[in-house]
């Protein structure tokens, strides 16, 4: 029998259920914290992003933070698929790109005006527009496409991959190859997608002038609000029965089969949700950055998305999102001040985190609290650390 339980060190605080038999436990502080602590955390993030940041940051910094939020939305999805589902999704750039390009196509068509063709098609082509661009003139269709296209593609891909029981490193390589292929395809189709330059020089987004500071601020607010929404969705998923099932599938996929579930279906749901979140992130990224190009969606970009999640803590609700924001911040802001040293510092940071905190920075608190002496003997017996095997990458 080859069933093995592969417990990872990733911190998966699967939410508690009220203790059996007693109703008093439902209102104990520990239970309330475990159940609703996540909501308090999300509220704090919401206050920082929606109240503090718009009132304190310059327009430029706010725009940057908006981009990090877009990455963080994709990261929340990666946290679900990788941290909880054990699928090392190394090609999320593909879905980020699908959303980003869908939005950018709409904005290009807005900039071109009714019945007109985007500028680059005149520049590089014969001023004819492929028919599949046409529906993106409609804002409603674009929004629909941002959700529907990645959902459909990830469902088909995920079904094909997961039903064949492709997992671990093979799954990671396959998704990574998709990102490479996607970027190559974009570069090769300059007449249809803008090629290496990508799509840029937008003027309006849904009729709003993008050079208007208020519109810029609103774009940021939408991105930040969407991040909060994704965090709330994740919070509910993690505490739901599905969340428990996903963790159980990650840890012992074969065992799940003998409980009457098809693990492929359980993982497929997480994979599709992660793809839709990545697409949403991409769709918000394009107007905030003013550009979407193959370098935003290729293998390197996909790994950068992953890096933030790994750094923050892939199985933790906030680790993934805050990690992605931190990596984005480090890349742009800190690298302004330390242009040469930053890359080395970032590399060193990753090595240190992977070596000593494979569960990401979010697992630091758990490690510290485990090392501290317990307050009462009762607590000590409850907080038994489950013996964990060595870190599995996927």
């Amino acid at each position, binding site marked *: 029998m080859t069933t093995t339980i592969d417990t990872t060190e990733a911190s998966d605080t699967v939410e508690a259920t009220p203790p059996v038999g007693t109703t008093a436990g439902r209102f104990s502080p520990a239970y309330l914290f475990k159940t609703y602590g996540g909501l308090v955390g999300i509220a704090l993030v919401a206050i920082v992003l929606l109240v503090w940041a718009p009132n304190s940051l310059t327009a430029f910094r706010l725009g940057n933070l908006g981009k990090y939020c877009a990455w963080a939305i994709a990261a929340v999805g990666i946290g679900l698929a990788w941290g909880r589902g054990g699928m090392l999704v190394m090609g999320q750039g593909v879905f980020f790109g699908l959303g980003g390009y869908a939005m950018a196509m709409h904005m290009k068509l807005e900039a071109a005006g009714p019945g007109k063709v985007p500028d680059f098609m005149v520049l590089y082509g014969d001023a004819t527009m492929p028919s599949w661009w046409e529906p993106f003139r409609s804002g409603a269709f674009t929004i629909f496409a941002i959700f529907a296209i990645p959902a459909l593609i990830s469902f088909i891909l995920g079904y094909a991959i997961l039903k064949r029981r492709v997992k671990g490193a093979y799954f990671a390589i396959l998704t990574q190859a998709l990102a490479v292929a996607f970027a190559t395809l974009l570069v090769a189709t300059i007449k249809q997608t803008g090629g290496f330059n990508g799509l840029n020089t937008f003027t309006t987004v849904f009729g709003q002038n993008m050079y208007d500071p208020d519109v810029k601020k609103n774009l940021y607010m939408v991105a930040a609000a969407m991040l909060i929404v994704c965090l709330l969705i994740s919070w509910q998923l993690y505490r739901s*029965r599905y969340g428990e*099932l996903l963790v159980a599938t990650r840890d012992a996929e074969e065992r799940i089969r003998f409980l009457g579930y*098809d693990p492929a279906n359980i993982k497929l749901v997480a994979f599709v949700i992660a793809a839709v979140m990545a697409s949403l992130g991409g769709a918000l990224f394009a107007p905030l950055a003013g550009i979407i190009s193959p370098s935003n969606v290729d293998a390197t970009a996909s790994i950068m998305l992953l890096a933030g999640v790994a750094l923050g803590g892939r199985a933790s609700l906030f680790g993934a999102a805050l990690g992605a924001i931190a990596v984005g911040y480090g890349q742009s802001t800190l690298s302004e001040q330390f242009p040469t040293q930053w890359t080395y510092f970032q590399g060193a940071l990753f090595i240190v985190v992977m070596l000593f905190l494979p569960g990401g920075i979010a697992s630091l608190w758990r490690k510290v609290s485990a090392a501290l002496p317990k307050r009462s003997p009762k607590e000590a017996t409850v907080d038994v650390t489950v013996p964990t095997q060595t870190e599995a990458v996927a």
Partner: protein
Amino acid sequence: MTASFLGEDYLEVRGLTVDFDGFKAISGVDVTFLQGRLHFLIGPNGAGKTTLVDALTGLVHGTGTAGFRGQDLLSMKSHKIVRLGVGRTFQTATVFEQLTVLQNLDIAAGLHRKAAGLLLSRRKVPESVEQALETIGLTALANRPAGILAHGQKQWLEVGMLLVQDAKVMFLDETVAGMSSEEREETGELLKRIVGDRTIVVIEHDMEFMRRYADFVTVMHGGKVLAEGTVAEVQADTKVQEVYLGTVTEVAADA
């Protein structure tokens, strides 16, 4: 064989053969698992006991037929077989160590739930889970991670998971191996309590345990059924005594 045992939900295996690249781990096995009894499957190492269960639960491919509730288990996928009401445990207990005892049971109870309900969190402990906790005697440990359980407790948890699945046929693969004698006794009593209208098939090496609790015994050897019958019948069988050399003859002698 006593006809009074014959119930509706019997599992009928005919001509089951499992071929591993030319090596026949099981060849032409006919066996019927009837409702309402503890059916022991014994035999020396390599006799094909676990392979038989693997084939019946979709883990390895077998030819022949295995009829249960009008369906052939051999043509079904593992999770569909479980949904039909045939569950199993493994030689090494494979509970979800990071989840609590309660969560383990809740996941096992989930196969009858609607998919949409999965998106909600658990509001209260389901009745079936509470009953199972009571039956397997782990109520006090319900909120502990399953990883801290003792070996015997993990096996009971596995039995509990089969209970909440409402498995009508349970295959227990060497459940009492590595248990202390008290734990074995408790396990035996547990199985007697839960058998009811179920079919419980126990793969076992421990002859003492078999003798105490078996309602019916099938002896396998070299991938074939060697003998079948009650404990006394099997122990009196000369072929069985030959296979087990000293082991069974000794047991038979003091039986």
